[in-house]
């Protein structure tokens, strides 16, 4: 996932262009939803933030399994980098959700299954980052973090199915439904959502490239410090 400077430059500009296309579609192209009004457009930020967070936690889950299996530091780096990005975007989900809920439900927060499970997901991965920052570097820290990274991901299928299994305030799925992909949405709304999802996915890879590069620099610093220490 580490890019050359040319690749990161191309990725940066591609991300900026797609973000501007998404903003243009959200504010100028997509029609206003009849019952909720303009506030419904928050969905075009809220769903991509949730997608990015879930995707980031999926990368943590996969990298953690690969780390426990292969014991290669590379996978631990990917898991750590992705967890941080996931927490940032999960925080944005927990902020944009209540901003939409206040005018629609009349309350910032309700203890609905999906909302509560998302808050739990956020707490799990904040604990993951705290575990990493509060314990000494080494294989034990990486192993404990990997176990937490795997267990934490099990919350995501629960979040997805919570609105189907239990009575919920949260709207039913509109993108992935029992009737197929995007069946619950108008074509222009679906198109706008897809552009926004693409923008946030590109943003994930851009951020991930930077975070992985930083972790590798940190490893190199530790290696040089040890080299310098043993040379005395």
């Amino acid at each position, binding site marked *: 996932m580490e890019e050359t400077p040319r690749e990161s430059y191309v990725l940066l500009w591609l991300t900026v262009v797609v973000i501007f296309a998404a903003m243009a579609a959200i504010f100028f192209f997509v029609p206003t939803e009849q019952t909720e009004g303009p506030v419904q457009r*928050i969905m075009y930020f809220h769903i991509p933030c949730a997608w990015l967070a879930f995707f980031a936690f999926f990368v943590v889950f996969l990298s953690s399994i690969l780390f426990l299996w292969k014991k290669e530091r590379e996978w631990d780096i990917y898991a750590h980098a992705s967890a941080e990005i996931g927490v940032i975007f999960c925080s*944005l989900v927990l902020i944009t959700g209540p*901003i*939409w809920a206040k*005018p629609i439900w009349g309350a910032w927060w309700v203890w609905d299954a999906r909302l509560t499970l998302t808050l739990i997901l956020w707490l799990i991965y904040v604990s993951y980052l705290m575990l990493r920052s509060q314990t000494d570097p080494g294989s034990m820290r990486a192993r404990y973090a990997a176990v937490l990274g795997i267990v934490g991901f099990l919350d995501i299928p629960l979040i997805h199915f919570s609105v189907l299994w239990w009575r919920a305030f949260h709207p039913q799925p509109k993108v992935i439904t029992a009737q197929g992909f995007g069946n619950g949405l108008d074509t222009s709304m679906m198109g706008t959502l897809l552009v926004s999802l693409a923008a946030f996915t590109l943003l994930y890879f851009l951020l991930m490239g930077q*975070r992985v590069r*930083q972790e590798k*620099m940190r490893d190199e610093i530790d290696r040089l410090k040890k*080299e310098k220490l043993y040379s005395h």
Partner: protein
Amino acid sequence: MDNLGFLFAANAFVWAGVIFYLFTLKKRNHSLERDLQLLKEMVDKESKQ
């Protein structure tokens, strides 16, 4: 129903969060690059002595 303030608040929070994180990454990058450069120079100097 016209709740434009909520729409702009959500938009502002998302982009402020992204820009703040990008700024943090840039600052962290700068500090790591500086430390790495310094250490490389020290190790090089010691290996020449």
